[in-house]
């Protein structure tokens, strides 16, 4: 099996995937806008983001209350939506926030299996989560248009506490 990138790339990406996955779970349960977005997805929706060929992956599933749950590298065998970043280099561009998720998609760096409108939804989710996760100057680069969410500081704290104390994805 070809190893994706060098060990530093692999380590960085696997940390970032875990942080992002936990942040989606934490923010998706607290932020009203994200809750609304997740509620609009079909019941039992599952999402996987991965890096070709054998990079890290993150899995999100919505539970019966339509709230997102992060499952680390454990997810549905055939997720409703699977977005695969086509190389570790592109994953680095995305997760060092040199390139926004939108630009990655526009430049054909993501293979998306499933309903493209759901892909669109997940890009919105990632953008929103990044505004909580990242300091403003970096978040501005990572999203198409930076909008400071309401109660940002309180949410940011909650998201980071969620990342640190959540057990989701501990097996990844």
């Amino acid at each position: 099996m070809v190893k994706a990138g060098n060990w530093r790339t692999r380590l960085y990406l696997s940390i970032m995937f875990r942080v992002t996955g936990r942040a989606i779970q934490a923010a998706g349960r607290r932020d009203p806008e994200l809750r609304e977005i997740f509620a609009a997805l079909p019941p039992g929706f599952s999402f996987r983001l991965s890096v070709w060929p054998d990079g890290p992956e993150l899995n999100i599933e919505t539970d019966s209350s339509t709230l997102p749950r992060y499952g680390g590298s454990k997810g549905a065998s055939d997720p409703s939506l699977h977005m695969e970043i086509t190389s570790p280099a592109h994953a680095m561009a995305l997760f060092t926030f040199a390139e926004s998720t939108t630009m990655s998609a526009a430049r054909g760096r993501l293979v998306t299996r499933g309903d493209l409108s759901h892909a669109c939804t997940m890009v919105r989710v990632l953008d929103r989560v990044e505004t909580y996760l990242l300091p403003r100057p970096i978040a501005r680069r990572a999203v198409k248009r930076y909008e400071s969410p309401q109660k940002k500081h309180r949410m940011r704290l909650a998201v980071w506490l969620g990342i640190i104390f959540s057990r989701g994805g501990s097996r990844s």
Partner: protein
Amino acid sequence: MTAHRNFYRFTSPLLTVAGHDALEELPGLLRSLDMLHPLILTDPGVRRAGLMDMVSAILKSQEDIIGDTWFDQIPPDSDTDIIAQAAQVYREKGCTGLLAVGGGSVIDTTKGVRILVSLGGEHLRDYQGADTISSQLVPMAAVPTTSGTGSEATLVAVIKDARNKRKLAFTSPSLIPSAAILDSRMTLTLPPAITAATGMDALAHAVEAYTGLGRNPISDSYALKAIELIVSTLPEVIEHPDNQEARLQMAVASHLAGSAFSNSMVGIVHTLGHCVGARCGIPHGICMSILLPYGMTYNLHRCRERFGKLLQVLSGKSVYLETSEDKRPEGAVAAVKALASRLHMLTDGAHPLRLRDILDRSGHPIMKPQHIPVIASDALGDPSHLYNPEEVSLDELISVLRAAYWGYPLDKDLVKLGHQK
């Protein structure tokens, strides 16, 4: 850390034959593509217009080509059931390729059939997504009979799922047809109103490709050439529908615009247009024509220089030079509006300028003001806005739709300028 590699992709693997009698090249093309027994797909309208007789006559004289296997019942709102039926005919008759003769619906349906007969399986929805189809598909040639969708040049197929009426979207370079034939005779009988609407669809493709996030220098050159051809020939084909040279120019323009947006994708004009079309059954080209100036205004602050450059292509060099640099972007929007108004005049009002002016048979507006919030909310789920230069939100989409509905200018203050502010 790995350095970020910056590059872009442009794909156009297709063979294009264009000319006043390009269709005569069809037999040679079928031989070179190794499709001596094509399944020919079309719709009843194309058949009624006598265009199929032309295809039949050309194929009948070829001994080595089986040219009488048809599937001619494609409705305007084709879906996965129709595709499954056509795929069944393809398999039963042992065809070796697909020939689409028609507008966007026929060509997209044929792309769906192509996926099914090449990859097997029963359900098209298993293949939906972006860049998911990487294998070689059976050969497909397309003969467009409208100048607008550019579908004969694109990697996109949008097909309705018969089960839940949702749109399935497929984008993969393998979906670009193997060959396209642009023959001016194919669009000669197109009525003025349809010519106008489809032509404005092509213009929307080119403008959105030129200003969208996925643009690159190659798609730019296709888009600019397309715009140049459209502004110089669209009014002419409406005034003189049998001007074959102008018809050919429009076919080429639509083809170039298709290739451009196939690479750089479209934006807010299509996002809203898809949803107005789906909710109210308004033809795509009409939505494009009405929404294009509003979509441009919405995005203006994101790439003023680009919109400024468009003025030169839309209105000519002298207007461009006479207009001060800071007024050029707005000038480009005005030029698009002026073109739409001219089409409105030339078609005796059949080409509408506001969404509320699109009437049903009893003379009432098809779209009602109460549709606006529903359509805006649908639009958030339409993948095309991903590539729009400015972010969109529900409130902003409502503002754009309202303005386009009543025909008043878009209040730019309603568009949040995000972090540019």
